[in-house]
């Protein structure tokens, strides 16, 4: 149980970073931390005590496997995370070109 809690705490660490950090790159890193905590959570869900990797090989047709579905989901989620992070970084670079800073206190033309 404690490991699930640690996982949740990691999620909250990321959320804290998103809320409190003032640097665009740090915000992106915080989002990545949140993502990893959720990936970890999914892998924990699928874990079976003493299970092996869910690949059927010769001679191990009936071995005890961990649940493969969360792993498949996490693979998808990693791909999505890659795309999100890449787009975020691209926009951050463009913002840096326009505003000349990564500080969100100075990037606030839109208000209200």
């Amino acid at each position, binding site marked *: 149980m404690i490991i699930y809690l640690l996982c949740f705490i990691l999620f909250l660490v990321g959320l804290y970073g998103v809320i409190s950090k003032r640097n665009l790159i740090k915000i992106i890193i915080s989002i990545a931390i949140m993502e990893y905590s959720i990936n970890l959570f999914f892998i924990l869900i699928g874990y079976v005590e003493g299970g092996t990797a869910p690949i059927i090989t010769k001679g191990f047709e009936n071995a005890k496997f961990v649940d493969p579905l969360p792993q498949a989901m996490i693979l998808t989620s990693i791909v999505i995370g890659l795309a999100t992070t890449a787009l975020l*970084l691209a926009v951050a670079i463009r913002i840096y070109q326009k505003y000349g800073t990564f500080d969100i206190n100075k990037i606030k033309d839109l208000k209200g």
Partner: protein
Amino acid sequence: MKGMTFIVKKITQIICPIIFMFGLYIIVHGHLSPGGGFAGGVIMAGAFILQILANGKILPKLRKEEEGLEFMESAAILGFLILAGLGLLISGGVVFFANFLDKGELGKLISGGFIPIENIVIGAEVCAAIATIFIAMVVYKDEEKK
């Protein structure tokens, strides 16, 4: 972008084909062992990225390469869609993503129906996508200097 010293270049020349080959190995054995299209594609893209980082490239050539990779990426996705769509026609029942090829024998390299083919297509797509992302960032940085 500028390249690095000739030590890095020489080592890159030797190591890049091996990394690339390892990526292909992961993709081809995707249905037999951990890994598959995504993991192998990332490794293959790593070989390209290493080469660009070590040797450096001028901006116009990078742009050209980016376009080519974009093309390859879209073609790979289309290939994937066509493979999935072939299931509609070949399987008899109108089923998207039907595994219409012979499943083969467990544990052999040629087995699993069309899953290895899809793995290869996904590998090409992921490799192209990640290399595109990298090159796009480099292009941004080079544009900024001007």
